[in-house]
């Protein structure tokens, strides 16, 4: 029985042979798919950008996720376009004139702007695009009364009430009027044109050679946005070279990366806070909310959550909104646990109370923040229990149903205007998840909206922020830091004050 049979040996040998053939194949293939960057120019290199989740669509008027908007920023443009400083520059419109009462906006179309399909942008395309966006029911366009073609080069938008901030909404993507399905065939005017998409895998774009703004044309020819669904493999994929860049890595991931990666540090442009449901006891009591502001120390949270990076905020506004941001509000409440106890006693909660912080489980930084807050509140006798729920449940119960006591989340601004952050605190706003109601606030907000004088508007918005701070609408904490990891083969990453990954600015590093 111990005699070895020849057949038996052949089996093993065959198996080994096949295995070795397969692995040689793998070696050979990975060998040739490796670095082609030996004699590289911007034209011959592919930049692979990791994105945390797949796009929720390609139709610019019907996508919601911030992660989608920041990618589509490269494909579509509006009549105006934001820059990295937070200015709105004329884009498809070369000139803009606003009537004195800020109800009529007239745009002069720029000559010779081409869509990715080679056709020139016409007034009909602009009218079609704006009307299509209005038809989606977008709340920002509710007040648009009419969109008229004045002549071949001019288009006029009429509003029901004065609104000096309306220009910031005119970043709405302009698409060809005869486009059958923008979701399958996204055609815009941006520096990159769409090539292909594979669900859950990637979106591929390439440089648009006829881009109108030659000063800001793209450098890198081929760009792949690759879905990196598993956060645990991001560092490995960067090091291995299957992605060259990853926005929003954590500080831990950033520290794990080797020297061949450059970490760009910016701000996430989020208003992170411990949001309180102002309609439920004890948070309906202003004294209790103020006490909590005294009991929470943003510095300690930043140290714990992101090694001290981050930017303290004292109201619902973040620093990159330059003229609206009021840094002095950071000092409305400085960390003072004794004062907190005093206020609690005054409010009738000398022995403290307990409540639940409901946090979406997919946001590590918000969970970490909630944990530090719970520790801090413990010191003044308030017991906070943290309940993690799935993002969908958060959207449905907390955000939609307002069925919560407190939550930690960050709000971003979808457009470059203060009202994008402040509207939600007005008492009848559909997205006022805080149940915040304050007559002074409503009045100040209304005054800001109806004035046509910029300085006065800034003044009113700052007043809004001050009211939020003084009435402790929420326990404002910080604008979170954002880390972007990019291979040192490339350079030129630029942060924007809203969600945008401007790939056109990225180029090969010198000496490559």
């Amino acid at each position, binding site marked *: 029985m111990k005699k070895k049979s020849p057949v*038996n040996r052949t089996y*093993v040998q065959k198996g080994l042979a096949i295995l070795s053939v397969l692995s040689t194949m793998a070696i050979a293939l990975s060998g040739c798919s490796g670095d082609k960057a030996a004699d590289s120019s911007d034209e011959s290199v592919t930049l692979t950008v990791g994105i945390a989740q797949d796009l929720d669509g390609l139709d610019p008027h019907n996508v919601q996720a911030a992660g989608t908007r920041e990618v589509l920023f490269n494909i579509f443009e509006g009549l105006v376009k934001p820059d990295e400083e937070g200015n709105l520059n004329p884009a498809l419109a070369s000139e803009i004139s606003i009537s004195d009462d800020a109800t009529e906006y007239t745009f002069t179309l720029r000559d010779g702007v081409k869509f990715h399909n080679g056709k020139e942008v016409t007034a009909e395309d602009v009218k079609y695009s704006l009307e299509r966006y209005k038809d989606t029911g977008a709340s920002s366009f509710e007040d648009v009364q009419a969109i008229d073609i004045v002549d071949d080069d001019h288009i006029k938008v009429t509003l029901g009430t004065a609104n000096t901030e309306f220009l910031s909404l005119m970043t709405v993507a302009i698409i060809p009027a005869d486009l059958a399905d923008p979701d399958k065939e996204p055609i815009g005017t941006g520096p990159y044109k769409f090539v292909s998409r594979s669900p859950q895998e990637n979106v591929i774009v390439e440089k648009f050679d006829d881009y109108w703004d030659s000063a800001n044309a793209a450098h890198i020819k081929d760009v792949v946005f690759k879905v990196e669904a598993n956060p645990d493999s991001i560092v490995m994929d960067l090091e291995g070279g299957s992605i060259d860049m990853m926005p929003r890595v954590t500080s831990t991931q950033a520290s794990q990366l080797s020297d061949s990666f450059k970490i760009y540090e910016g701000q996430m442009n989020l208003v992170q806070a411990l949001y309180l449901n102002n309609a439920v006891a004890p948070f309906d009591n202003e004294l209790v909310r103020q006490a909590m502001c005294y009991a929470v120390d943003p510095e300690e949270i930043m140290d714990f959550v992101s090694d001290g990076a981050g930017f303290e905020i004292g109201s619902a506004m973040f620093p990159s909104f330059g003229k609206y941001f009021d840094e002095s509000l950071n000092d409305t409440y400085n960390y003072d646990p004794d004062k907190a106890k005093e206020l609690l006693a005054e409010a009738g909660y000398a022995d403290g109370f307990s409540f639940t912080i409901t946090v979406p489980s997919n946001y590590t930084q918000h969970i970490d923040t909630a944990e530090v807050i719970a520790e801090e509140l413990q010191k003044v006798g308030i017991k906070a229990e943290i309940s993690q729920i799935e993002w969908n449940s958060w959207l449905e119960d907390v955000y939609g149903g307002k069925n919560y006591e407190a939550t930690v989340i960050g709000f971003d601004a979808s457009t470059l205007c203060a009202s994008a952050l402040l509207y939600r605190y007005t008492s009848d706003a559909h997205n006022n998840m805080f149940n915040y109601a304050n007559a002074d606030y409503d009045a100040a907000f209304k005054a800001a909206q109806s004035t046509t004088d910029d300085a006065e508007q800034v003044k009113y918005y700052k007043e809004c922020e001050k009211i939020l701070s003084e009435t402790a609408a929420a326990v404002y904490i910080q604008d979170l830091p954002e880390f972007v990891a990019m291979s040192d083969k490339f350079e030129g990453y630029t942060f924007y004050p809203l969600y945008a990954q401007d790939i056109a600015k990225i180029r090969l590093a010198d000496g490559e």
Partner: protein
Amino acid sequence: MKYILKKAVMMILTLFVVSILVFLAFNLIPGDPAARKLGTEATPAQLENLREEMGLNDPLVVRYLRWAGGFVKGDMGDSYTYGPVEKLIADKVPITITLALMAFVIMTIISIPLGIYAARNKGGFIDRIIVVTDQVVMSVPPFFAGILITLIFGLILKLFVPGKFVSYNRDPAGFFAYLLFPAIAIALPKSAMTVKLLRGSVIEEIGRDYARTAYSRGNDTRQVLYRHILKNAMIPVVTFMGMALADMVSGSIVIEQVFNIPGLGRMLLTSINNRDYPVVEAIIMGISIMVMTVNFMVDVIYRIIDPRIDAVD
């Protein structure tokens, strides 16, 4: 023939039950697909419109019948994000099936020769090594094997670039090359189990009377082993391998995460997160159909290996 008919009816009944369970489960868990899609900027009017458009306002029974009715006709509905589900699944099925089949082939290549070799040389030095290694490999879960493989073959030996998956329609050779290591990760623990099972089974059969009789008729070891013993020894192994194949398809869900492969598993997980019900329902139904088909095929193969089973039925 009668048996096959009986099995087919059972399959349809099971599928019916599965379809109800799947449909109910995803309509009972919290989370509103419309709210998920529209996010934090949604107005109540937009939400209402989208719910209507998605058909979420109809009663549960109506929705079930509409979905199941379409499914029978081959229309799996529209994904909330990606358009027709059939097309989406048709894109992703080749990835996951290729991965599972490659794992199956690797498992077969490794385990059958090793199992027989170990059994023939029972108690020998190599057999002992095989038995011990087997025990270790068996207890390593595929995702952990995946991480180890990525580390060793990807980052240290640089035999492949982690995460650099290419689709089959863009670069078929690169596609197979990338799937090789994930397939090994899936195949390893299953191979170890097959080796153990086959070794045990062959050793047991060798001691049987019919084997002794076969020897006494003048057959040499090789003839006895391949003509008589293996036929019997393979029955439990075939069952296991069939189950393993079904398991490999569902097991690839985990491995797809580790190796960043955009196959059915990735699709399933993200669709559950996004509450993209039509996609989730279709994938789960697909996996159920596949598991049942494999089991059915295992039954048929039994009958070919051992005709006595049919007689008992």
